[in-house]
């Protein structure tokens, strides 16, 4: 059983970057269907920048809270589009909620909740609007429900909930972001932002779960 220290946060960002890179085309294709087709490229650009920042932050010996704050800032200053400020703000707020060299499951859960709240405040979206919130909110809920479990378990529950939330966006009609311009035509397509959110929670779970070889 392991708390979230800076090394773990770095592993998360590395896994997230790898997942985004692997799914760039898929994310952009989802965005092309109901948006402008750049979500994959936006996040790839952002996480490439994060990869550089993150290594430096670790070398500088920062704690996980400031680490996430900086990573969020990097996303804000490299992604552009809607996703950059939203994800960046979520990470910055989550980071600000963390203190000390390592955080346990409850602390991480509270931090994620703070991130979600900031994201919702900034974007004005609620669950059901067909946005990243539809994956983010259930993920945070599942994570906090497992506050008494170890980090990896909570993260696994969160990832599963995020993926369910992601799939549940398909039948929804969008009320926020570009997809809302399509009206009824947004129905039947999975939201790209919810999809990238699910990838990020899955990356968190995988980075915390010892690989079979270890």
């Amino acid at each position, binding site marked *: 059983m392991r708390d979230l220290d800076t090394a773990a946060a770095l592993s998360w960002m590395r896994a997230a970057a790898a997942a985004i890179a692997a799914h760039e085309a898929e994310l*952009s*294709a989802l965005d*092309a*269907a*109901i*948006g*402008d*087709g*750049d979500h*994959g*490229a*936006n996040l790839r*650009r952002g996480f490439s920048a994060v990869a550089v920042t993150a290594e430096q932050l670790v070398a500088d010996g920062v704690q996980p809270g400031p680490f996430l704050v900086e990573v969020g800032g990097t996303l*804000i*200053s*490299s*992604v*552009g*589009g*809607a*996703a*950059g*400020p*939203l994800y960046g703000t979520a990470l910055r707020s989550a980071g600000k909620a963390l203190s000390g060299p390592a955080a346990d499951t409850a602390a991480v859960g509270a931090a994620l909740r703070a991130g979600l709240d900031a994201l919702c405040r*900034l*974007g004005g979206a609620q669950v059901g609007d067909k946005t990243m919130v539809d994956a983010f909110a259930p993920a945070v809920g599942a994570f906090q429900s497992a506050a008494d479990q170890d980090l990896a378990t909570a993260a696994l529950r969160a990832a599963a909930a995020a993926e369910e939330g992601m799939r549940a966006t398909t039948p929804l*009609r969008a*009320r*926020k*972001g*570009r997809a*809302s*311009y*399509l*009206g009824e*035509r947004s129905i039947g397509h999975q939201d790209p932002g919810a999809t990238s959110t699910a990838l990020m929670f899955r990356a968190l779970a995988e980075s915390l779960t010892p690989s079979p070889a270890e």
Partner: protein
Amino acid sequence: MKKFLDDADTAVADALAGLAFARPDLKVDQELRIVTRAGAVRPGKVGLVSGGGSGHEPLHSGYVGTGMLDAACAGEIFSSPTPDRILAATKAVSAGAGVVHIVKNYTGDNLNFDMAAELARDEGLEVEKVLVDDDVAVRDSTWTAGRRGTGATVIVEKAAGARAEEGGDLKAVADIGRRVNAASRSFAVALGACTTPAAGRPGFELAEDEIEIGVGIHGEPGRARGPMRPARALVADMLDAVLEELPASDDPVIALVSGLGATPLLELYVVYRHVAEELDRRGVRIARNLVGNYVTSLDMAGASITLCRADAELLRLWDAPVDTPALRWG
């Protein structure tokens, strides 16, 4: 996908490099992707910053120059620029009288410009935001992110630019921008999709007799798909949509017919013919017009129509001298 590019990732940077070579009257900050006028901002003049995703050229860099913008921030293709760059542009054109941000109404643009404005205010600058939301293809309701900003941006930038040039203060410049936006409505149809360099293939596929009705300028599908029809019929429907939401008034209009990138000028003039005849039939007088590629969507085949009710003051500001790559007169 075939495009005159070296690499999808450097498309925006390479185009800005070309602009820098072509226009010594502009200054291009390659690192921050900011285009400003070559000279210093006149002390006491309100600064005008706009920007957004690239791929809409000549918007916004083509409107930087005397009588119009002081700075344009070029985001990646169809992605808003980031707050740090908007902040840098804001500071670069600040000359003590405040800065106006002209922002097209998209979630990304709003968030990034708002964050930049926040940061600028933290540094003691006054920033006013003028939001452009003229596209009637999107209803402004709780079901949407509100109407999109499209063709009216050119008119907002022109009028606000003229007001700033003649010495208007921050409020006056922002006010005229808001007034132009409130008086403007647009509608666009696409005959074919555009291809973003990153995606490498068209955003949607249309049958030989299909069009997308009510498209924006980001390659997204429109509100509905419909059958191709003669230009006269398409224009009549587009004008129906625009006039339904255009403020009623006795003022004449400024009419803008913009190609979306791949539509020949010949066709745009055919569109304008019908715009002129239809408006005449409906008793709307056109006082000024622009026909050409002014707000585009990469290589999308299609056209947009923008009407802006213009009183005497607005016509005066429209007619004021302007000297930019894409608009030049007076």
